[in-house]
């Protein structure tokens, strides 16, 4: 559940706030430190948890700050623009802004964006974007104009999308809005016009955005009080320049129909947005947290002294001007669920230890872009050429593009390199494998078997992460791959398990011979090596009356006969070791009976018999030793074997009854089970005797009604 905690004031504001509020609040390089820029001349660095300013810098009288100060996370320096064109870069230790590094640019800056993991970007009024390093290398370089005349940038946001920086900015011209998405890995600028839909009268007031996996979800607050969502694709599918995007209603009447300026919204995470503005019922301003998934109001807080209509959200804190004070409202959010949204979820967590439950997967984790340290950067700053300024294409991205069009061999080599270099996280592996499988589908000749095997062996994959993989392997009868998948994936659906079983049973011995299959779970390899070539014997059918068939009463006799009998019949494994290894994989797999049973019915009768024979064989082998285990590495356990015998019999009861091949097998199985039962009943009797003995032992300790004992007191 999302919750707002008690607010606190950062400063009773010596900041020169105009009626328009602050210029901006931006995070600094240390957690909990924030740069606050006011509308006139001052930048203040606050430590939020201590509620105190750590430093304050002002530009000279007559100069005016035009864009909020940001922190260059790579160097730890602060950057600010005053008088539209003058860039200042300074350190915490610097006192006078007049004496710090200065660069005068050739065009007016709209805003500088800086986020963790990448260099700051400078967005010019004309829509052009430059990396800071490139700009500083040649401050007077010519800045082109991207947007048309009369178009004004209204809102901007800088993201990391799969470790690639992406800048989104919204412009307005004659009441129409346009979205520009600048991807820096591809230097690709896409323009979209935002289509309002039916509600033509309403005016879009404010925007916020959140990056989903494939889309940038742009949320806009409209003057009719509703929140709309527009999805902007991250990777534009076609290169057509001006695409139209239609917005959809996300949240109705989040704030009252307003024309005033003091409404805004901010995306908190994929499910929650914060809306600042008067709610429908009252005229007082309110900070409300909405769950957009369930469209419920999670919490709200009245702000009676009014706000400037600005809201910033970083980490766990919401910043706003409340009255004249810069106010921080800590925001915590649990995993949102229906139960939580309906208030049915128990609030078990200690509020003190609660952490936000979303993780910024897009956040760089020290690899990928790789941030050069500040010293280097500073030296490099002026030397770098424009060519090298483009963010490096990360290895995974490179690999992905290789996957798209490289040859099988080349991909394999690249993949090996990549895996050797990076510890794989499941996003990248997932992307790579999806790419590979996609290509497999598209090009029937393309089947990068080794790559897939390598990827599976990274242990990060699961069935749900690459649903196509096992299907592809099934299509191509790649039993080796299937064996590996069965071993590695924890979440294989029963359909697929059953399909695998079907294939393992039906695939010809000849085709198995050629494959390299891990047979470590098959212990009797050497015993049966010589039999490998032996063809599966056709079942010997006994004609007519079988005296053993219904001699239920002669169990004792059976018991005596059985050992020789069974060894004779089943010393030979009914399947070749490779097949046995595959089947063992099936026996080990997790399943739920209800889901498995219907699929087992589809297996042909011949295969069922074979499988039963194999299970019977394993069962006999198991019973050979007292511990009821099979030798070998990861052999099937007795209970697995028993469960599968039951499953197979349950699913195909009539079939096995009908087919003559199974008859003898069933009789043998029955006899064996029967003899086992009689053994166990004998064991039962012994157990009772032992229990009595144990009881007697205990009674001895219980001492009876009277005894004389020795006691020594210490």
């Amino acid at each position: 559940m999302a919750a707002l905690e008690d607010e606190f004031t950062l400063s009773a504001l010596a900041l020169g706030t105009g009626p328009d509020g602050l210029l901006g609040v931006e995070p600094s390089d240390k957690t909990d430190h924030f740069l606050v820029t006011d509308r006139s001349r001052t930048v203040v660095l606050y430590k939020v948890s201590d509620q105190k300013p750590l430093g304050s810098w002002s530009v000279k009288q007559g100069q005016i700050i035009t864009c909020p100060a940001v922190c260059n996370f790579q160097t730890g320096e602060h950057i600010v623009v005053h008088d539209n064109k003058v860039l200042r870069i300074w350190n915490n230790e610097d006192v006078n802004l007049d004496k710090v590094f200065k660069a005068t640019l050739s065009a007016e800056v709209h805003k500088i964006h800086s986020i963790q993991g990448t260099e700051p970007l400078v967005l010019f009024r004309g829509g052009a974007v430059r990396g800071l390093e490139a700009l500083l290398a040649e401050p007077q370089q010519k800045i082109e104009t991207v947007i048309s005349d009369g178009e004004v940038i209204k809102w901007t946001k800088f993201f990391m999308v799969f470790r690639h920086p992406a800048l989104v900015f919204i412009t307005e011209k004659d009441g129409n809005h346009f979205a520009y998405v600048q991807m820096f890995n591809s230097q690709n600028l896409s323009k979209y016009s935002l289509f309002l839909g039916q509600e033509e009268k309403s005016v879009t007031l404010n925007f916020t955005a959140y990056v989903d996996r494939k889309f940038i979800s742009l949320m806009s607050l409209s003057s009719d009080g509703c929140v709309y969502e527009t999805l902007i694709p991250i990777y534009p599918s076609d290169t057509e320049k001006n695409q139209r995007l239609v917005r959809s209603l996300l949240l109705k009447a989040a704030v009252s129909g307003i024309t005033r300026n003091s409404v805004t919204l901010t995306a908190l995470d994929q499910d929650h947005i914060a809306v600042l503005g008067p709610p429908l019922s009252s005229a007082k301003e309110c900070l409300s947290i909405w769950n957009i998934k369930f469209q419920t109001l999670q919490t709200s807080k009245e702000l009676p002294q009014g706000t400037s209509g600005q809201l910033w959200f970083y980490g766990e804190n919401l910043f706003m001007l409340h009255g004249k004070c810069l106010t921080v409202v800590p925001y915590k959010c649990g995993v949102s669920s229906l139960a939580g949204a309906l208030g049915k979820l128990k609030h078990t967590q200690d509020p003190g230890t609660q952490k936000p439950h979303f993780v910024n997967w897009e956040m760089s984790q020290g690899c990928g872009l790789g941030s050069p340290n500040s010293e280097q950067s500073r030296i490099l700053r002026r030397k770098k050429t424009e060519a090298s300024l483009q963010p490096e294409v990360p290895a995974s991205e490179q690999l992905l593009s290789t996957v798209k069009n490289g040859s099988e061999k080349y991909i394999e080599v690249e993949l090996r390199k990549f895996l050797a270099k990076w510890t794989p996280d499941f996003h990248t592996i997932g992307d790579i494998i999806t790419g590979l499988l996609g290509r497999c589908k598209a090009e029937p000749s393309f089947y990068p078997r080794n790559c897939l095997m390598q990827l599976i062996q990274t242990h990060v994959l699961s069935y749900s992460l690459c649903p196509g993989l096992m299907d592809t392997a099934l299509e191509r009868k790649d039993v080796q791959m299937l064996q590996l998948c069965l071993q590695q994936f924890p979440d294989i659906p029963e359909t697929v398990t059953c399909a695998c079983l079907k294939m393992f049973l039906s695939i010809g011995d000849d085709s198995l011979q050629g494959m390299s299959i891990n047979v470590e779970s098959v212990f009797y390899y050497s015993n049966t090596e010589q039999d490998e070539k032996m063809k599966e014997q056709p079942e010997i059918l006994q004609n007519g009356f079988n005296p053993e068939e219904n001699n239920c009463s002669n169990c004792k006799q059976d018991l005596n006969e059985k050992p020789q009998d069974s060894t004779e019949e089943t010393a030979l494994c009914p399947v070749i070791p490779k097949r046995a290894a595959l089947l063992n994989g099936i026996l080990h797999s997790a399943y739920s009976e209800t889901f498995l049973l219907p699929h087992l019915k589809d297996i042909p009768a011949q295969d069922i018999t074979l499988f039963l024979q194999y299970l019977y064989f394993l069962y006999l082998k198991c019973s050979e030793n007292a511990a009821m285990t099979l030798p070998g590495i990861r052999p099937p356990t007795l209970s697995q074997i028993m469960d599968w015998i039951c499953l197979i019999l349950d699913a195909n009861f009539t079939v096995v009854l009908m087919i003559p091949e199974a008859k003898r097998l069933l009789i043998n199985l029955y006899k064996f089970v029967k003899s086992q039962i009689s053994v166990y009943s004998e064991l039962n009797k012994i157990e009772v005797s032992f229990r009595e003995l144990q009881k007697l032992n205990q009674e001895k300790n219980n001492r009876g009604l009277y005894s004389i004992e020795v006691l020594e007191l210490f």
Partner: protein
Amino acid sequence: MGEFKVHRVRFFNYVPPGIRCVAYNNQSNRLAVSRTDGTVEIYNLSANYFQEKFFPGHESRSTEALCWAEGQRLFSAGLNGEILEYDLQALDIKYSMDAFGGPIWSMIASPSGSHLLVGCEDGSVKLFQITPDKIQFERNFDRQKSSAIQKMIVDRQYMGVSKRKCIVWGVAFLSDGTVISVDSAGKVQFWDSASGTLVKSHLIANADVQSIAVADQEDSFVVGTAEGTVFHFQLVSVTSNSTEKQWVRTKPFQHHTHDVRTVAHSPTALISGGTDTHLVIRPLMEKVEVKNYDAALRKITFPHRRLVSCSKKRQLLLFQFAHHLELWRLGSTVATGKNGDILPLSKNADHLLHLKTKGPENIICSSISPCGSWLAYSTASRVFLYRLNYEHDNISLQRISKMPAFLRSALQILFSEDSTKLFVASNQGSLHIIRLLEGSFKHLHTFQPQSGTVEAMCLLAVSPDGNWLAASGNSAGVHVYNVKHLKLHCTVPAYNFPVTALAIAPNTNNLVIAHSDQQVFEYSIPEKQYTEWSRNVQKQGFHHLWLQRDTPITHISFHPKRPTHILLHDAYMFCIIDKSLPLPNDKTVLYNPLPPTNESDVFRRRTAHAFKISKIYKPLLFMDLLDERTLVAVERPLDDIIAQLPPPIKKKKFGT
């Protein structure tokens, strides 16, 4: 410290009777408990839950209802159709009065305490006025068609809330007009008495809900079920700051294995009792202000008085049951062994005698003389004295008839060490001394109670030299009489907590007194003052673990050869206090069951303290020294008691 041969006796086949009723008195913080054999016990909840008084049972008197009225007067009613009032001073039955309505199933006092109301078998409800020294029939309420009336909490209104074929086992009438009923269908139901409508119903058990008790504030009540579960219901606000309140089932407790026949609600605790014979006092943690020992769960199973006496000379044990006595001779062994060894018996214990009482009354007290040739016991109306003759293995019993008329009933009987005198504490507060002669007796003297007091003496102790007799009642101090000069010698200053055990040490004639708050005092009779050791103990204080024990010391004895040793025991431990050793402080380990093997002598000497405790024998009903190297311990394992109870309601458990 010493090595002993311990006769570990488990053949005392004592089963406490089940609990039928409990009644809590808020004024005196006392709890009256009636058992299925008609015994009524009074527990002083302020005095560490000590069972300070008891009224012996009677075969024909099955107590079905128990209540306090008019302050601290205790009444009971039962299936013999009589209402009884108990004399809490003289520990006697004041009077009994027939209600003339057949067996009485329920009784309740009016809230003011001025009237008693009984529900009779014939369906009538009878109102009695409580006069200062009796009760007086006032009126009879109309006979109802259904004959079973269970309980009425407030007079003049009868709520017919029976449903289907189920039995309403109890009702409670709250001052806001809510009636709460508990019934055999396992339901607790709330009714509106004005409209007669069901307001709410809680199904809490698969078996009968048999009892209900409401707190005085009417903000909480407790019910007990036949499954042994006790449920606590509380009136709580619907939301945190609304005035609207509702009854909510808050806590279930499972401290019983059998039917919870009765419950009571003290301001700070839920009290329950039933067929499994345990009296359970479960403190409500939210009501307990200080986290002291009162905040602990209490389970009282055994009486806080001795049921066993012992003849040291002949190694006999006399066991007291409700209606008979058993005399056993201990076995013997010639073997020796080391700590923990069980020695082979050369002779097993013998059951010598099974003496049944005549009449329906329960035995109050019993005693066997140290020499083993005299045996005495008392019921509520008679004292019996027997002479035992031993001829080889045969034993013959001779009843001494013609006991003097004043020996009507004894609360405590004690033989002198040389078995020549018999001391009898009668329930009128007087102490009789009787000289025993071969086959006859002679009344020597009677110490009359202090003028004006009628408090019964329940504990007696005589000095081994026979010169001193100490007697203690419930509240006043311990009186010490000079037996030679037949006069009161001194009175030990009264202490806040009742005495649980008394004994006079040989030679020194120091009187050792144990109180229910676990304090132990030593008082020198000749010097008429507390001994130096006792003063030291009081100065330093007992170890906190000693004070936290929850059963009283029921017996004190002395080592014949080691004058510094005091032996005492409660139900869960037995202790030898060596007065020559330093007292333990709160930092030392009070109970160390392991022999100090590895430590040096220095260390051992440094850590050794006066309290040598053994917890091997439990529950311990009796322990005494037979001679300087032999102890006898009478245990009564709970499992053996449970085995003799009726089977509990079988609950379906998964997998069974």
